[in-house]
């Protein structure tokens, strides 16, 4: 019950990145919002996994954690001019 509540709170943190996605103003801000959402999703999955006792969710969280840097890395490596 309390874990459900915490998972919902972590989801709210994931959602709270969306306004920054809209207002920007720079491309770096938008990638930063995606990064925060990724961390929030990993936390949400950990809490959901603990609440439901399903270890498969920890695997999903691990996959997210392992790949969380790829989008940011692609942004830094490929994007050389600010739009």
């Amino acid at each position, binding site marked *: 019950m309390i874990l459900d509540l915490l998972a919902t709170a972590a989801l709210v943190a*994931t959602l709270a990145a969306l306004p920054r*996605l809209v207002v920007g103003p720079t491309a770096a801000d938008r990638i930063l919002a*995606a990064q925060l959402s990724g961390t929030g999703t990993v936390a949400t999955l950990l809490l959901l996994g603990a609440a439901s006792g399903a270890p*498969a969710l920890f695997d999903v969280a691990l996959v997210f954690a392992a790949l*969380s840097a790829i989008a940011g890395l*692609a942004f*830094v490596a490929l994007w050389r001019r600010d739009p």
Partner: protein
Amino acid sequence: MSTAFDILVALGGLACAGIALVAGNRIGSVAAFVIMGFFVALAWVRLGAPDVALAEAAIGAGLTGALLLRSANRLGPVREAGVPIAVHGIAACLSLALAGGIVWAFATGTAEAVYPSLVAARVGESGVSNPVTAVLLNFRAWDTLLEVAVLVVALLLVSGLAPVRIAPAPPSELVLPFLRIVVPVAVLLAGHLLWKGATAPGGAFQAAALLTGGGLALALCGLLGAGRRTGHVLVLAGLGGLALFLAAALGAAILTGGLLDYPAGSAKVWIIAIESALTLSIAAMLVSLFLGPSEGVRDDR
């Protein structure tokens, strides 16, 4: 309580989709699309489909974002006065018709699920205990073979179109500690998911996506794919998986008389062998799809 969570997940996904469509800024759209993938994965988790959530996490979180950012970089900023209003209208009508059709199908169709009981009855014969792997690699292995063939066709098409190959420079020396930890862990995790796929959520596609993530991390830091030889090796590895799958199909046909009908008792060995080859080849194909063909290497800046 959980209802609030589910509603938030659904609203978050819809909000991201909306932002991705109207952002008017390519990086914003890509970032919104990546975040939508997070919510979609959470939705699959809540729907009790961790296999699909794993695939969405692996493909959506890392690879699609990197691929779209690569394209966004090639296309440059959005030009004003893009799509005419009529196109918007047609798209809206089509979307509404599709949404209406889905609602109608759910409202009138029978809720009876046909496949779970059929799969559960025969899963013991498949050699694995995870029903998803049993369907993908045994009962409907033909579908999987054709899906791998589709990837090969995509790779051939990209080679034919010959986009400019990317050759990023290392962004900073501080990426080296990051690579030294994340790439080996990604390889280990891929092996873990591949092996676990027989009994629990996991499997070849998810493992391949993780390996691809490691490969993309190396490529984006300028440590993979600089030379022409890497490209050839990747394409050969990609074709090798399909060749091995076809050889397994023919071998099984000779041994048992049915195409992809594995000999009784040794089904698990066949499945693990095919999945291992597929993992390597799908990862090689995805990485070379991202890098572009091996011809015409030049600096993309």
